[in-house]
C-alpha cells in the first residue's frame, strides 16, 4: 500500500529531513510513527499525500509513484487519503456540516447527498447531532473528531494523522486513539505520528521510529493495555425515504452513501 525506497529529503537550506528511509506498510495495517520533534515525522507524512517531494528515492502509494505524478493528478491521489492534523484545521465560520463535506462538494454530490455522507461520517465519530454547530462551539476533542469525520467522509484507503492528540488531554486522547483503531478495524490503513511513547506501549501495533531523519527502528509491539474495540457495525442499514435533517438523533438510521463519483 505504502512503500518508501531509499527516500531522502534535503531542504534548500541544506538541512537533511529524511535520509535513506525504506519501509513498506501493507494494506490495512496500523502503524505508529514516532521520534523526537524534528526527527522527520511530518515530512514523511507529507510525502505520502505529495505535499512534499523527496530529493531522492521513490514513494509508491497504492502502486503509484507519487513523486513523479503530474501536478494535475495530485488531487485524485489526495481523494484516497484522509489527513488529520494536531491543530484540527477547521474553518471557524463554517458549520460542522460544511467543514466535513468539502470532498463530496468537490466531487459534485448534491446537497442531500452531502448531508447524508456528512451525517454518516459524523456518526462514526459520535457527533451526528452537531451537524449545524460551528467549530468554536465545540470542545477540542469534538473539533478533532470533526476533523477525523472530514478525513473519513470518502472512506479513504489511507488515514494519516500528524500528532492528532497533541492538543488534547489524556482522556480525550484515548478517545481519539480509539477512533483511529476502529477506523483501522474497518480496513483503512492508518499511519499515526506521535511522540507519546506511553500510548504506543499501551496500545501496541507496528512502530516506525525516526531519529534525525533516519529510520532507527521498525518493530511490532504487543500492547500492555490495548483498548477494547467495538467490532465495525454492519453497513446494512434500513433505508429511510429522506436523508436525516441536521441535528437528527444519532440513532437515526440512514442509507449508505450514494456511489456518486465525479467525472471531473
Amino acid at each position, binding site marked *: 500500500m505504502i512503500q518508501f525506497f531509499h527516500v531522502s529529503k534535503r531542504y534548500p537550506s541544506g538541512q537533511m529531513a529524511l535520509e535513506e528511509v525504506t519501509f513498506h506498510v501493507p494494506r490495512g495495517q496500523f502503524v505508529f510513527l514516532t521520534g523526537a520533534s524534528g526527527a522527520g515525522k511530518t515530512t514523511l507524512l507529507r510525502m505520502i499525500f505529495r505535499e512534499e517531494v523527496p530529493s531522492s528515492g521513490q514513494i509508491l502509494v497504492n502502486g503509484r509513484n507519487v513523486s513523479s505524478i503530474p501536478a494535475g493528478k495530485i488531487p485524485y491521489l489526495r481523494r484516497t487519503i484522509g489527513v488529520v492534523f494536531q491543530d484540527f484545521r477547521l474553518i471557524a465560520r463554517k458549520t460542522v456540516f460544511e467543514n466535513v463535506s468539502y470532498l463530496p462538494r*468537490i466531487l459534485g454530490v448534491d446537497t442531500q447527498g452531502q448531508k447524508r455522507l456528512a451525517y454518516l461520517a459524523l456518526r462514526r465519530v459520535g457527533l451526528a447531532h452537531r451537524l449545524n454547530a460551528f467549530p468554536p462551539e465545540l470542545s477540542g476533542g469534538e473539533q478533532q473528531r470533526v476533523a477525523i469525520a472530514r478525513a473519513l467522509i470518502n472512506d479513504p484507503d489511507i488515514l494519516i494523522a500528524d500528532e492528532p492528540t497533541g492538543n488534547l488531554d489524556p482522556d480525550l486522547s484515548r478517545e481519539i486513539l480509539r477512533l483511529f483503531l476502529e477506523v483501522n478495524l474497518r480496513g483503512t490503513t492508518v499511519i499515526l505520528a506521535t511522540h507519546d511513547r506511553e500510548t504506543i506501549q499501551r496500545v501496541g501495533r507496528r512502530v516506525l521510529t525516526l531519529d534525525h531523519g533516519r529510520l532507527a527502528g521498525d518493530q511490532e509491539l504487543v500492547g500492555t493495555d490495548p483498548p477494547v474495540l467495538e467490532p465495525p457495525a454492519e453497513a446494512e442499514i434500513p433505508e429511510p425515504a429522506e436523508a436525516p435533517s441536521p441535528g437528527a438523533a444519532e440513532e437515526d438510521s440512514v442509507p449508505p452513501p450514494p456511489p456518486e463519483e465525479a467525472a471531473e
Partner: protein
Amino acid sequence: MKFLQALRYFFREAAVNLLRGWKVSLLAVLTIAVSLFIGGAFLLVSGNLAASVERWRGEMRVVVYLRPDTSEADLRRLAAEAARAPGVVSVEPVTAADARRRFQEISPGVAELMAGWQEEPLPASLEIGLETRTPAGRAAWLDGWRRRPEVTLVDDDREWLGQLETAVAVVRAVGLALVGGLLAAAIFTIASVIRLTAYLHHEEIGIMRLVGATEFFIRGPFYAEGLLQGLLGGLLASGALFAVYQALHARRSSLFASILALDFLSPKQIAVLVLLGAAAGLFGAVASLRRESL
C-alpha cells in the same frame, strides 16, 4: 464534477464572497462603473456629434456672393451654369432685393437698417445645394468660382464641417485613451480585491487542496467573483448613462443638449459596454491569481 454544476458552485460562492466583503466589492464595482461610464459618455457624445455632422452634411450648401452691379440676367446665367456642375443638387439665385426682404423677414427688429439705402445694401448670391459625398474636383470647381470677376466671396459650409469632424475624431481618441487608462485602474482594483479575498480564504483553500480539489475548482469562485464585479460595474455604468441621457434629452431645447442627446447608445453598444466590464473583471481575477500559489 460536471461543468454546469461547477459553474453554479462558483457563482454561489462568488455571490457569498461579494456580500460578505461588500465594502471592498463595492469599491471594485464603482471603479469599473466609473471607467465604463466615462467610456460610454464619450461614445454617446462622439456618436451623436457624428450623427449631427452627417445630418448637417445633408443640408450643406455653398453660397456664392456676387458683386453689387451684377444684373439679374447675369445672376440667371450663372445659376444655370452652376446647376450643370456634377454633384449640384439645387441652385437658388437670390437677387439683392430678395436678400434684403429675407433679412427684414428674419430680423424684423432691425428691419429699418435696410431702409433708406440708394442701392441695395446686400449682394445678390447663388445658394448651391450639394450632394453629401464630395466628388473629386469639387475644391477646384469652387476655386474657379472664387476667381471669377463677378464673385466677391464663396462661403463653403464644408470648411467648418471638416473641423467638426476632426473634433469628433479627437473626442473619440481622447475617450479611448481615457477609458484605456481608467479600465487599467479598474482591473488593478479588482485584482487587488480578489487577491485580498483569496488571502482571507487561504486556510480554506489549504483544506480544499488537502482533500483533493483541483486548481480549477479552487480558483473558479474567484474568477466568478471578478466576472460578477465587472458585470455589475457595466450594468451600473449603463444605468447611469441612461439617466444622464434622459436628463439631457428632457432639455433638448438647448443647443448643447440637442446635439449631444439625440440618440441613446444602441443595444449592441450597451452589450459591449457590459461585456467589457465583465471581461475586465475576469481579467483582473485571472491576473491576480496568475502567479499566486494561493
